[in-house]
């Protein structure tokens, strides 16, 4: 194996060579390289992204030596972007690293076209006003944007892109696609060649559960007017029927069949997530449609026609007790059906492309194949403009995140210092209030030791004003939390920055590799008791 392949071995096992190739093509821009930004990029440089551009206009101060690993004593007074960039380059020479000694806020104001050259922009430690402006620029240019912010013991991560579609979502737990509740003709035929009532004990205990369940389901349907078990009682009877076929009680394959019997009971057809996708207006394709939506349109046709309500078959089966021969043949039966389904999808894709006046060959076979295989697991993520979230958050959601009656009563009754379950909602509001505060007073609340008391009451007023503007009840805001926010004084703690940077880099990887599902909503890290939350605003 070549050295880069060995170096990336542990991550190639997660996102494969395709994912790695996407990372190596990506060009990433970082705004502000304090610890939050530096740590985010560190994780990406280690993973081997194509190129990075570090933008920061500040010089290294002594204070930076206490929270940023990418600067050291010799860097004091030098450009922070230059020092951070040099250290990052040291981590991986395959990455093209460069820096720009410019203030991100100024770039946003004066040179919006600057951002169009990147695959993705990571904006760290920006205040609300700059976030909103940058978001507009990136949305216009269709550049993926991710905000990351560390503030005392709290943090925020937010993705912003019009639409992100995923074919390989690789969920942890997903029901395998065995069609035990709806076997196709070839599978039925295959099972017909097997006799469950064989007297050969070795053959009997090496019959895979797929065959057992298909046959018993058929037997059941024949005596139940063509229906499969649906009530609890019927399901119990079905399991008893499986049990009655056992020769001895230690036959693993029959135990597996009983455990997997729920696969016979599960509903036919497609799940609600996929239904939502094929019902999406984007599935009505035209010349401007993306490859993904063209394939969704083909899938929709397949489900309505050849599929008979089902997606193309995935084509793999889990390991199960079986003789080698039966297992391998079963595997071939599934693969053949998956291949046949894929060919239908492919033809439909080509026809659709022609219909919308695109080159019929413009979507590769490999992509269509992957789409066909993963059809049940597709994901579409859309993100509101940050401006819209800030100005008109989903009000009932916000109120819910802020209110926690149990906590308030408990606290008033016992004056216990327990944290409310919904601290994250309060932290979100207070971070926004801190940015408003900064606009009004030209400093963050609690930035100076001498003005703490004053700042606490000012922050409270600001937060109450913000909540009123958003149409929320402000009584839910905890005094302790306001006090806590002032205590933080806009500090950027290294460990918090490492957490926020870790999350941000993980999301960048998911967005670039187009694998796994990126987070939706606004993530609030609660470093007080670790009850972090995703706010769907």
């Amino acid at each position: 194996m070549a050295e880069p392949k060995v170096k990336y071995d542990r991550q190639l096992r997660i996102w494969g060579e395709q994912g790695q190739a996407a990372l190596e093509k990506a060009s990433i821009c970082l705004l502000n390289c304090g610890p939050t930004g530096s740590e985010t990029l560190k994780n990406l440089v280690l993973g081997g992204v194509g190129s990075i551009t570090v933008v920061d206009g500040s010089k290294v101060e002594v204070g930076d030596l206490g929270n940023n690993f990418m600067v050291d004593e010799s860097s004091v007074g030098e450009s922070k972007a230059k020092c951070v960039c040099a250290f990052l380059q040291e981590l991986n020479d395959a990455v093209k690293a460069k820096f720009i000694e410019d203030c991100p806020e100024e770039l946003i104001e004066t040179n919006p076209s600057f951002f169009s050259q990147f695959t993705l922009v990571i904006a760290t430690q920006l205040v609300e006003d700059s976030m909103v402006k940058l978001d507009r620029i990136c949305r216009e240019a269709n550049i993926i944007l991710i905000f990351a912010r560390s503030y005392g013991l709290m943090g925020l991560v937010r993705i912003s892109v019009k639409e992100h579609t995923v074919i390989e979502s690789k969920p942890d737990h997903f029901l395998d696609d065995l069609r035990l509740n709806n076997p196709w003709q070839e599978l039925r035929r295959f099972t017909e060649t097997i006799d469950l009532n064989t007297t050969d004990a070795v053959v009997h205990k090496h019959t895979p559960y797929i065959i057992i369940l298909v046959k018993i389901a058929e037997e059941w349907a024949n005596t139940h007017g063509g229906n499969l078990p649906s009530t609890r009682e019927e399901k119990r009877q079905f399991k008893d029927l499986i049990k009655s076929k056992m020769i001895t009680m230690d036959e693993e394959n029959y135990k597996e069949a009983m455990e997997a019997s729920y696969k016979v009971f599960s509903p036919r057809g497609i799940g609600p997530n996929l239904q939502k996708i094929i019902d999406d207006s984007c599935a009505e394709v035209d010349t401007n449609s993306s490859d993904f939506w063209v394939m969704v349109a083909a899938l929709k046709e397949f489900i309505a026609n050849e599929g008979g309500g089902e997606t193309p078959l995935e084509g793999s089966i889990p390991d199960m007790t079986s003789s080698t021969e039966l297992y391998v043949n079963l595997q071939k039966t599934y693969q053949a059906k998956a291949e046949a389904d894929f060919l239908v999808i492919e033809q439909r894709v080509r026809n659709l492309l022609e219909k919308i006046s695109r080159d019929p060959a413009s979507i590769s076979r490999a992509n269509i194949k992957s789409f066909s295989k993963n059809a049940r697991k597709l994901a579409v993520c859309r993100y509101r403009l940050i401006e819209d979230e800030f100005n008109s958050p989903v009000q009932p959601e916000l109120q819910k995140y802020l209110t926690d009656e149990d906590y308030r009563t408990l606290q008033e009754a016992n004056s216990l210092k327990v944290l409310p379950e919904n601290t994250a909602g309060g932290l979100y509001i207070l971070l926004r209030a801190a940015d408003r505060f900064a606009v009004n007073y030209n400093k963050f609340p609690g930035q100076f030791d001498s003005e703490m008391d004053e700042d606490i009451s000012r922050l409270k007023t600001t937060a109450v004003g913000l909540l009123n503007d958003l149409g929320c009840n402000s009584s839910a805001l905890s005094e302790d939390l306001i006090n806590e926010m002032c205590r933080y004084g806009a500090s950027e703690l290294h460990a918090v920055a490492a957490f926020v940077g870790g999350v941000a880099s993980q999301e960048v990887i998911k967005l670039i590799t187009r694998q796994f599902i990126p987070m939706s909503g606004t993530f609030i890290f609660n470093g007080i008791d670790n009850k972090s939350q995703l706010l769907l605003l």
Partner: protein
Amino acid sequence: MADSTSQSRSRDLDKLLLRPGNLVGSTFEPGTQLREDIKEIVRVLVIGAGGLGCELLKDLAFSGFRNLEVIDMDRIEVTNLNRQFLFRLGDVGKPKAEVAAKRVMERVSGVDIKPHFCRIEDKPISFYNDFSIIVLGLDSVEARSYINSVACSFLEYDSDDNPREETIKPMVDGGTEGFKGHARIIMPGVTPCFECTIWLFPPQVKFPLCTLAETPRTAAHCIEYAHLIKWDEVHSGKTFDPDYPEHMQWVYSEAVKRAELFGIPGVTYSLTQGVVKNIIPAIASTNAIISAVCSLETLKIVSGCSKTLTNYLTYNGVEGLHTKVTEFVRDKDCIVCGPGVLIELEVSITLKKFIDLLEDHPKLLLTRVSVTYRGDNLYMQAPPVLEEMTRSNLDLPLFELMSKTPTDIVHVTGAAGKGDKKQSCSRKLRVVFKGVGVTDMDMAGGA
């Protein structure tokens, strides 16, 4: 917007350590003294200098800790470089602990990190008692279990069976696999120890040998056949070494042959390595996230500067982002963090007889036992010098060796478990001699 502290290295951390707050621990005393104590007095041990360990050392160094030590038995490999950011290609082959310590000290001035390039079992138990807190960045259940048993062995209970606070050795534990991870805090005697919730780490499923030999179905079955059965058949007596590329290549080609014979798809060299070495996928971001939580919790436990995690955090970034905090409860009968396994003995029993007894004790099943009492080695299995020095004690009555103390705690180390599942551990025993000092009535209460 400058502040008087902006020219200080602890500019940001000071906000957290010098200012009072309401959402803090009960022991929190903000001020420069606290900051200095963390710097000067607190000693932190990091176990493991791998994916988590590298991050932990950096994060702890930036959380105000100056006295750090790190222990790791491994050397740097090329496959570490995608996440263990303290290592470079030129470091491959060097001890992880040493390089990690050096790199952090180079960049964070004032911090002192002492590396230990050895196995965790190589250190005397007393070594672990010197630290204020132990942070674990490990990838094995066995190693976690061992450190847990060591830390719990320091725990003493008072006469009401409440843990003595000064004997509690806090631990913070992290673990990752791909996009998933966990972080937890263990305060022995207060929160569940690793052993109380061992069910969170189910043993790895192994393929039945008859499947490998007779009915292989998957690529992994073919690989394990070549690795576990064919190797021994062909290379009689030669041990398979997964770090020898020739060995791995041999297993791979045998697996390919077997797969072709049975018509099984999917054997690749990469999968062969994965199956044989039980490789856990690992990435930089998850390690960064989990280590950050562990470091922050370490600072909170030591300083009280915020609420602490109660007591187990799970993280999953596969679909969206999920974090969950669960408060697990202690197992009251835990033999590791409980008040100790009660052993009733005759005064005449010799140390040798006592050691034999532990082997058959249903709760202990301890072999290769070494015994210490109040810091003195009564019998040591190793090293040979110590064994020889302590051997003469074997024929003496334990009661004599314990200065005729009617009841007291005795610490033993050894290998626990049956068959091939043995692992190193440390156990605390509450030894009571029959018919001396305490009446039967008292004993009933104490047991």
